[in-house]
């Protein structure tokens, strides 16, 4: 039996009944069949294709008549920007439900309306209890101890409206008034109807007094706000209260004979696709799993979850970055339209090359408007094993090339094969070089990295290690000594000396490496700083020693100075976003010209989300949220990646990491 007669539950019921007509399936729905919530439901071309391929019976009847559109239109700052080639389709939610109900009825699925299921635990005699009862799922609630749901309440406020103004594409509006700024997501699903979701930040919501609004107030306010875009058409309400988006995650979706599906199991911010889409894909996967293991429900539920979990995790990851954008858009709403739209479109899925392939004219306009000479913003880096010839080649090709990380002192070495500033004396006079200096801290005294990371040297070869707190880096690492004030003075002076030496040798740029679990990184991350003196605790205290080192080095180096930090530890309990912004502002206040957004490797348990430009959004936080010039790093593999980052204004410069087939 299914609790909840939304699209996901009905679709599952239809598919399961069709596959085996001997099944007795009952769907309970607390509302009447003609109650409708929401307006249209959006599917990407990819989803439509997937459903069409997997289901040749129900799909054509239910979804084939969807409204399809190609471009995304962004109306912002009095300008209209259109980017083509992004296929979507939408159907009216009411018609989708009607067709699914017709099919369910024809197949002999029992549909029971206006029936709450007060305690799902009383229905455990069913062979299978499907909880497809939405974000507030009663079924999930009844088995909360087993499903252990985590619900994160988002920072924005939104209201789900409709409009009768005709639209020919997925459209986004951004409008401001005396209270702040608002965005609208508009999805046309009929020639004369579109879903119209209005979203804003908490401060604007409060200044506008929306918390006291009824439905009519909301309509009146939003019609006034978006009057220039509505061309005299109306906004429509349908139980349109203001809400905060709740992201639901559950470590498991099944327990015994109870299984969750759709919003009951997981939600993702609507800006990356509809929950209905995921619910219908769930329904399909569950029906297919039951067919595959007709005599073994337990295995079928495991198979269902194995099939769907990675896909849902992917959507939730994209939704997270997209939701982040919507939570912060008031910060960049004043940007020029081209940069604003490019920043918007590259917030989670799209990149410069994918957009350029779909709509070259749009991307060319963005490039022209930016006035950027992208190649002049590239910084190359010497290979980590050290290669002076390669460094010379890189420096000849790019405006600036950095050395690998060089230790500021003997006890700051990572191992026996580290370089020295003096190694570059012959090159630095004729090439534009920057020096990278650091102290390996608890990751020191290790064997060569070509064999693997953090393999300690033998006791005879090793030297004592330092860190913020006496925590060994990995399970095989030596225990470092927690630094005392005398150690700090000495290390600070070592950095100052290295900075002076770099300047004397003729380096034009200096990057202090405070990342990846090295000595200064151990002060910055709460995972590795357990001190209870003035160097431990809140971020301003954890930053005290790194800032002292920056001050000392800054005083000795006349050129530009960047500080590289692990902008995320990519690990639970690591540096928070608020701490990142605070750290970036402190580094800037102490004279850093740039903050470089490296990430991870704080401990061996860090798991960065590896991929093209995988840390660009962290640079974006530093650059746009903190207002500190950022250098993006991590998976910036070619000039296309550089364009993706720079045209969106997420960084001033990029560290190029040219991986590729050798």
């Amino acid at each position, binding site marked *: 039996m299914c609790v909840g007669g939304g699209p996901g539950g009905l679709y599952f019921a239809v598919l399961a009944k069709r596959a085996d007509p001997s099944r007795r399936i009952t769907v309970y729905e607390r509302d009447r069949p003609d109650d409708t919530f929401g307006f249209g439901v959006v599917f990407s071309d990819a989803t439509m294709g997937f459903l069409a391929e*997997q289901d040749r019976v129900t799909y054509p009847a239910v979804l084939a008549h969807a409204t399809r559109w190609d471009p995304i239109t962004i109306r912002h700052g009095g300008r209209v920007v259109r980017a083509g080639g992004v296929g979507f389709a939408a159907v009216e939610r009411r018609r989708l439900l009607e067709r699914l109900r017709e099919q369910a009825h024809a197949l002999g699925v029992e549909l029971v309306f206006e029936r709450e299921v007060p305690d799902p635990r009383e229905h455990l005699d069913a062979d299978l209890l499907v909880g497809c009862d939405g974000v507030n799922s009663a079924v999930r609630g009844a088995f909360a101890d087993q499903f252990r749901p985590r619900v994160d309440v988002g920072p924005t406020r939104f209201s789900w409206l409709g409009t009768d103004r005709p639209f020919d594409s997925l459209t986004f509006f951004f409008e401001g008034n005396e209270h702040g700024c608002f965005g609208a997501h508009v999805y046309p699903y009929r020639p004369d109807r579109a879903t119209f979701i209005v979203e804003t930040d908490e401060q604007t919501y409060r200044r506008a007094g929306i918390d006291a609004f009824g439905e009519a107030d909301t309509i009146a306010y939003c019609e006034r706000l978006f009057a220039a875009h509505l061309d005299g058409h109306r906004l429509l309400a349908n139980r349109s209260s203001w809400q905060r988006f709740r992201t639901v995650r559950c470590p498991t979706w099944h327990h015994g004979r109870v299984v969750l599906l759709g919003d009951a199991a997981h939600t993702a911010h609507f800006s990356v696709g509809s929950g209905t889409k995921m619910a219908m894909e769930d329904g399909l*996967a569950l029906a*297919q*799993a039951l067919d*595959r293991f007709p005599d073994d429900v337990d295995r079928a539920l*495991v*198979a269902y979850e*194995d*099939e769907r979990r990675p896909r849902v995790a992917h959507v939730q990851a994209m939704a997270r970055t997209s939701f982040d954008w919507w939570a912060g858009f008031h910060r960049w709403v004043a940007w020029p339209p081209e940069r604003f739209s490019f920043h918007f479109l590259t917030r989670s899925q799209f990149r410069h090359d994918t957009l350029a392939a779909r709509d070259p004219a749009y991307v060319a306009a963005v490039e022209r408007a930016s006035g950027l000479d992208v190649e002049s913003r590239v910084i190359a880096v010497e*290979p*980590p*094993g050290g290669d002076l010839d390669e460094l010379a080649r890189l420096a000849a090709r790019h405006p600036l090339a950095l050395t690998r*990380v060089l230790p500021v002192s003997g006890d700051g070495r990572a191992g026996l094969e580290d370089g020295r500033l003096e190694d570059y004396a012959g090159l630095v006079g004729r090439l534009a070089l920057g020096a990278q200096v650091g102290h390996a801290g608890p990751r020191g005294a290790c064997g060569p*990295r*070509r064999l*693997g*990371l*953090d*393999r300690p040297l033998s006791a005879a070869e090793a030297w004592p290690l330092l860190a913020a707190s006496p925590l060994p880096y*990995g*399970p*095989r690492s030596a225990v470092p000594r927690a630094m005392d004030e005398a150690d700090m003075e000495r290390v600070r002076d070592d950095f100052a000396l290295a900075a002076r030496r770099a300047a004397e040798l003729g380096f034009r740029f200096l990057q202090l490496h405070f990342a*990846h679990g090295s000595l200064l990184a151990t002060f910055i991350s709460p995972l590795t700083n357990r001190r209870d003196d003035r160097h431990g605790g809140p971020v301003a205290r954890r930053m005290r020693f790194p800032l002292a080192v920056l001050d000392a080095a800054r005083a000795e180096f006349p050129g530009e100075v960047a500080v590289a930090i692990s902008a995320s530890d990519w690990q639970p309990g690591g540096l928070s976003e608020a701490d990142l912004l605070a750290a970036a502002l402190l580094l800037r206040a102490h004279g850093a010209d740039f903050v470089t957004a490296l990430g*991870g*490797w704080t401990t*061996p348990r*860090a*798991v*960065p*989300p*590896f*991929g*093209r430009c*995988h840390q660009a959004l962290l640079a974006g936080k530093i650059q746009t949220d903190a207002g500190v010039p950022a250098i993006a790093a*991590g*998976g910036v*593999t070619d000039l296309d990646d550089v364009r993706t980052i720079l045209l969106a204004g997420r960084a001033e410069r990029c560290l190029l*990491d040219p*991986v*590729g*087939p*050798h």
Partner: protein
Amino acid sequence: MRVGIGLPTAIAGASAALTPAWARRAEAAGLATLGVHDRLAYDSLEPMTALAAAAAVTERVRLAALVVVGPLRGGGAVLARQAATVAALARGRLTLGLGVGPRRDDYEAAGVPWERRGTLLDAQLGDLLDRLPGDVEVVIGGGGDAALARMARHSAGWCHGGGPARAFRAAADRARIAWSDAGRPGQPRLWGLGYFALGPGAAEAGRLALGRYYAFAGAAVARIEAGMLATPAAIAEHCAGYAEAGCDELVLFPTVAELDQVDRLAEIGALR
């Protein structure tokens, strides 16, 4: 890029006696590598034992476990001893691939909690690396971020799970990014996989075998079956795509347990 062949150890119903004969034939035909899969809850040969048999009857061909499901084998000590034994028998020709694998039923069969697979593999790796002889090449399998981080920390390379060349290329890029992000010099050695069936009637038999082997994979079975290489031209194209994407070692696994498959594969000129 070098091209090798899988041993017929995970084709249900195949005779164990076929394995040494297959190994001899593959080496004589000049193929670069003999690969094995690891599957517990299925009619198959245990991979390290099968490699020991192959080691005993060959001289030059590389022996590669692609990949062993580490957590099924307890701590690192037993697996390290097994690997050291195979490496000694093979005089240093062993590549030991390690991963968590995609199948819960293997864990249920071994009585190992599926939920702890990542933690168990990390602990095992720490133990294993201390004990393995230096001539064993360790590679890590798996496409998730945790697998890539593990690869970049510990291993010499990475093994893709199989698929078309463009999927390999995208996954290999992520592996190279992880490697570089970790500050490892050079590039990871990249291993690719494929399935093939050559000759009259072989494609149908091969798809049946894949359907049985991948019954756990749900909707993905159709994709895996469709990706099976059933003609010399398809194999040549697959090889070219993988080579271009930077694959170092491609191992094509049989789906039909007949010795003629070795010759039919080795005859394809594009392999060299």
